[in-house]
């Protein structure tokens, strides 16, 4: 059972209140008409799926019903940080997990 800190509620709650929604920071193509099939395919289906640090979108379904981002390790499942949509992660794979 993961314990997840919701940055909107400013509280740590149990995993069952939340729904994982996959990789975060995926930008929709700005000009849909001018976007190639390949770029549409990448946008819709191709994901990083890293073994290690993963930035992902979560939804506080049984709480505030808002979306936010989580930086989580996909092997240890440790959550390094949670942050609001629009913000940048402070823990990244290049920088390593900050203590």
């Amino acid at each position: 059972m993961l314990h997840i800190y919701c940055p909107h509620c400013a509280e740590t709650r149990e995993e069952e209140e939340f729904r994982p929604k996959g990789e975060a920071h995926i930008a929709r193509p700005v000009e849909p008409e001018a976007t190639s099939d390949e770029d549409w395919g990448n946008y819709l289906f191709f994901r990083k799926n890293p073994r290690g640090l993963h930035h992902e979108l979560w939804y506080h379904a049984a709480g505030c019903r808002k979306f936010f981002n989580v930086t989580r390790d996909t092997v240890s499942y440790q959550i390094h940080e949670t942050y609001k949509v629009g913000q940048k992660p402070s823990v990244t794979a290049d920088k390593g997990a900050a203590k």
Partner: protein
Amino acid sequence: MQHYSGFGLVKHALTYHENWQRAWRNPTPKKKYDIVIVGGGGHGLATAYYLAKEHGITNVAVVEKGWLGGGNTARNTTIVRSNYLWDEAAWLYEHAMKLWEGLSQDLNYNVMYSQRGVMNLGHTLQDMRDIHRRVNANRLNGIDGEVLDVKQIQEIVPIMDLSKNTRYPVMGASWQPRGGVARHDAVAWGFARGADALGVDMLQQTEVTGIRKNGNKVVGVETNRGFIAADTVGVVTAGNSGVLAKMAGFQLPIESHPLQALVSEPMKPILDTVVMSNKVHGYVSQSDKGDLVIGAGIDGYNGYGQRGSYATIEHTLQAIVEMFPIFSRVRMNRQWGGIVDTCPDACPIISATPVGGLFFNCGWGTGGFKATPGSGNVFAATLAAGKAHPLAAPFSIDRFISGKLIDEHGAAGVAH
């Protein structure tokens, strides 16, 4: 290869079973193979077996980082069926089903394939419409299927709660009598033994650390036991496919998730078929050993940790107890998680890749076990010819660019 038979068993009893041959060799890696298969699970071993048997290519190595059949092959709930909705998927899984039916004889190894029937329950009107549609589609494809009403279900599974008192009363079911369960380890061991006898090298505890390319053409794999050259490399690594693709320098439309399962304490025979429910989401069968084998859906988050969350197990068992109140006091013995590579359309990828000579067979998601012989068979043909087998062609990675998906979400009863 030492032939297994009833007579052999008696003969070896005379020497206290001390003279059995090892089922496969433990060779040192050669410098170069014609084909290297990465991943020694059921699908990889089946690929090696059919390469040697049907295509005469025996200079083949199976490279496995752990031991043979130690990944998802040993972690699944062993259900075999072929009642998929769409033609492409139905043909592929039915191809596998036909191989299952003669597999024990073919391999001279008892894979204990038991055609005890697979039942997919419907709990809502929409479930029943989907079931009718799927059964009709199956029958048009020559796959056995029937729609059962509640009375017929009760005759087959007397212990199921089919009253109106449940939260989601059962309204009917689809029934595939040829479906069933098989002994998962035996499948891996049988294929390994068969492939070994035909000259394939099983390289265990050999981890691929990189894929070496010359320009845009694969020339071999880097391993912890040194470089192994090969003009053709087939990757069959289930949950770790994304990691291997990254080594080769491209991305897959795959996400890895934990899928959990449980077995109970062994009991006397009580359930002689496979019961699956998509709506309340759980499935259960009883193994020959007597324990209930139970599973459900994946954990929603990405994970490589071979474990999942407790909440998922709780939901699974709620569903099982809803269907079978008689099981409410059964104790669970073991619980585990495997890593499944899920595709956006819940169908596998059997495909060439942007790298020449490199092929992937992955994305089987939660239901790869049932396809083991078929997957190996068509992937072997693909590797041997250097282009997709007709049954594998629709499962090209290109479908995620062209949009020609084979959407099996829910259509096949979802639960695997």
